């Protein structure tokens, strides 16, 4: 019997998974846009983004636009690869259950 894959715990968190999935479809996204799309609080969002950043899955660029701070997040190559791997593992775990 083939060994079942393990799911990456950094990505498996619901909010972190949502964030990576959002970022994979765009070049870069502002903190406020991510907050609006996930419906999360500032504190929780910041903490989860920091975890993704520490894992090397997202990069952040902080700058000032018209004297207001702006944080722009991008998914890294490692983040893209990890998400792809996660989806493969998920599909493998679900097996024939997908589409049922």
């Amino acid at each position, binding site marked *: 019997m083939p060994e079942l894959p393990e799911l990456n715990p950094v990505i*498996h968190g*619901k909010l972190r*998974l*949502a964030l990576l*999935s*959002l*970022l*994979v*479809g*765009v*070049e*870069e*996204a*502002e903190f*406020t*846009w991510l907050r*609006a*799309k996930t419906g999360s609080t500032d504190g929780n969002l910041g903490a989860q983004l920091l975890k993704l950043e520490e894992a090397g899955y997202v990069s952040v660029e902080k700058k000032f636009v018209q004297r207001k701070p702006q944080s722009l997040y991008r998914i890294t190559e490692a983040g893209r690869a990890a*998400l792809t791997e996660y*989806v493969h593992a*998920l*599909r493998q*775990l*679900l097996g024939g*259950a*997908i589409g049922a």
Partner: protein
Amino acid sequence: MTANNEELELKDRLSLIESMIAEGRRTTERWGWVFVLWGVANITAILWAALAHFPWAWPITMITAWVVTIVVAVRKTAKRPSTTLGRAVSAIWIAFGISMMLLFPALGISGRIDEYIQISVGSAMLGMAYAASAILLRWKAQFACALVWWCSSIYACFGKSTPVAVVYLSAIFLCMIVFGVYGMISDWRMRRREASHA
């Protein structure tokens, strides 16, 4: 956690990924209003110039449409993330807009323009922009509009004044106003569907 619950949880993760990716991609849409705006602006300019013989009809309507487009577009895109696809489609329309705003005033000032050249060149350029955008977005309805523009362009090379104007006005109505409204309705439907799935 039972095996069934675990399976549901994993399925939930998969649908979360799909919906979030779709949300990111959807940022390139919501532009139906621009087609409607420019369709109305073009028809207004044509009728105003033809019926009132007012020489400033074109500059006034075109500049107004440009200002409205820029102001609304800046406000709409300010908080949106940028996507490669969105930037590619924007590039087509910005380049098209600049070409039109340079070419037609220059032709008008030099006097080297008539209605046939205006319709033929304008329609051909619109056909090019519609087709390029349609290929990028894989949007069949927009490609069908590109075909209509090219027909209008070719017909302006051979047809007589009134039928050429009628074909051009019909193309504007169909490919800008009707197409724009269709774009707005499909976007609204998509948003409603996503809201009900959320």
